[in-house]
């Protein structure tokens, strides 16, 4: 049994409970035990533009909560991953650590911060996961979307290839689907500018949605709740703005993996997806 501290952040526990549900159900099958951080707060990323040190302090507090349990952190959101990793490095800075301690926080043991998908890739491994697939998901054309902060900046993550990533494609591939090979993997969803300039954010989201349509995609795989906000929740807005029709479901990776591991659609939380997934289920 592998144990990790599960960090939920802001969006997952309120707006993406189906992602959390699928993650927990998949973890049970894989022998992963999550210890919940009931006092986990926002990771700090939303205030980074206002004041970087404050954002790092918010992140460091969350890192400290897991450190007190002696457990590595598993994150479900790309930006939480980058923000908490940054704080984990920053805690080595004496001046920062002093302020952190003065606020009453502690970081007793060094821990790692990694995204769930990276943990699946590194700690479980492709071969083992492949061997656990009960029901290969044939007939589906799937496009894997990495998002920005799963890999970038590479000086924080040092994982995969930032210019031509492959880890998520491999993890999607083991479920038996056809993985779409495309050149625009690195595109940003636009989520970070949604609150500043909605029109620009919608244009950014449109880029990948139009690529997905060109490739006759059955579903986009997301690993970040903010990317899903852009591609799924805002898909109608994108369609209206560009006078087109997409209707492309967006699944979180554990939802797809869960189906492959033999979980039911309900156990994968698929009835909560905002763009209905009936077309996918009927192809299986």
């Amino acid at each position, binding site marked *: 049994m592998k144990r990790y501290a599960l960090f939920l952040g*802001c969006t997952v526990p309120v707006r993406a409970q189906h992602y959390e549900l699928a993650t*927990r159900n998949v973890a049970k099958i894989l022998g992963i035990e999550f210890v*919940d951080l009931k006092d*986990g707060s926002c990771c700090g990323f939303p205030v980074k533009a*206002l004041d970087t040190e404050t954002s790092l*302090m918010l992140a460091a507090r969350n890192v400290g909560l897991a450190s007190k349990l002696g457990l590595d952190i598993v994150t479900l959101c790309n930006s939480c991953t980058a923000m908490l990793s940054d704080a984990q490095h920053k805690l080595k800075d004496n001046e920062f650590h002093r302020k952190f301690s003065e606020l009453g926080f502690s970081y007793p043991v060094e821990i790692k911060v990694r995204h769930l998908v990276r943990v699946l890739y590194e700690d479980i491994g492709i071969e083992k996961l492949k061997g656990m697939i009960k029901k290969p998901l044939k007939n589906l054309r799937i496009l894997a979307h990495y998002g920005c902060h799963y890999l970038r900046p590479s000086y924080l993550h040092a994982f995969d290839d*930032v210019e031509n990533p492959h880890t998520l494609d491999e993890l999607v591939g083991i479920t038996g689907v056809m993985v779409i090979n495309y050149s625009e993997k690195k595109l*940003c969803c636009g989520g970070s*500018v949604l609150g*500043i300039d909605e029109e620009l954010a919608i244009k950014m989201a449109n880029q990948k949605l139009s690529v997905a349509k060109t490739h006759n995609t059955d579903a986009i795989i997301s690993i970040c709740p903010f990317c899903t906000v852009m591609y799924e929740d805002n898909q109608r807005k994108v369609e209206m703005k560009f006078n087109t029709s997409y209707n492309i479901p967006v699944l979180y990776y554990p939802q797809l993996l869960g189906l492959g591991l033999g979980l039911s659609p309900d156990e994968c939380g698929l009835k909560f997806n905002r763009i209905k997934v009936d077309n996918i289920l009927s192809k299986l």
Partner: protein
Amino acid sequence: MIDLRDADINFKWEIIKQEGGEGLLKCFGCSDCAASCPVRYLDERYNPRKIIRLTLLGLKKEVLSSPFLWLCAHCHACTERCPQGIKVAEVINAIKNYAVKQGYCPEGLKVQLNLLNNAGRLYELEDFDLKKRQRMGLPEINKKIPDVSKIISSSKIMERIQK
């Protein structure tokens, strides 16, 4: 037309003192950042190289009052490509931090800060959410995280944005 008589030669020294601003002086203006930028590709009002160049020239007001500064998505595509190893997205973010200190701050960011200060997360867990979590068999999490407002008040950032 740029008029260097308005330039503030201390501006760049202020920026390199900000968290993340350290690499600014290494820029030799190759424009790899702008060529790699997904925002620049769609909207030419935003150009990281131009912002850095204007900062180095000391055109403080032009940089800080520009609404385009805030269009950076912080995606770090630029950072990965910079031949000088500058953490470009961090430099742009340092300029944003400094702009806030000088009284320039988009309303959306103020709203986010207030939400965090109030509940500790961007989306407060309403009773509806707690019940939905319960129905789905998801564990309880605490509704309010008071440590967050403790961190925010120690940073004096609230006073800064109300200026």
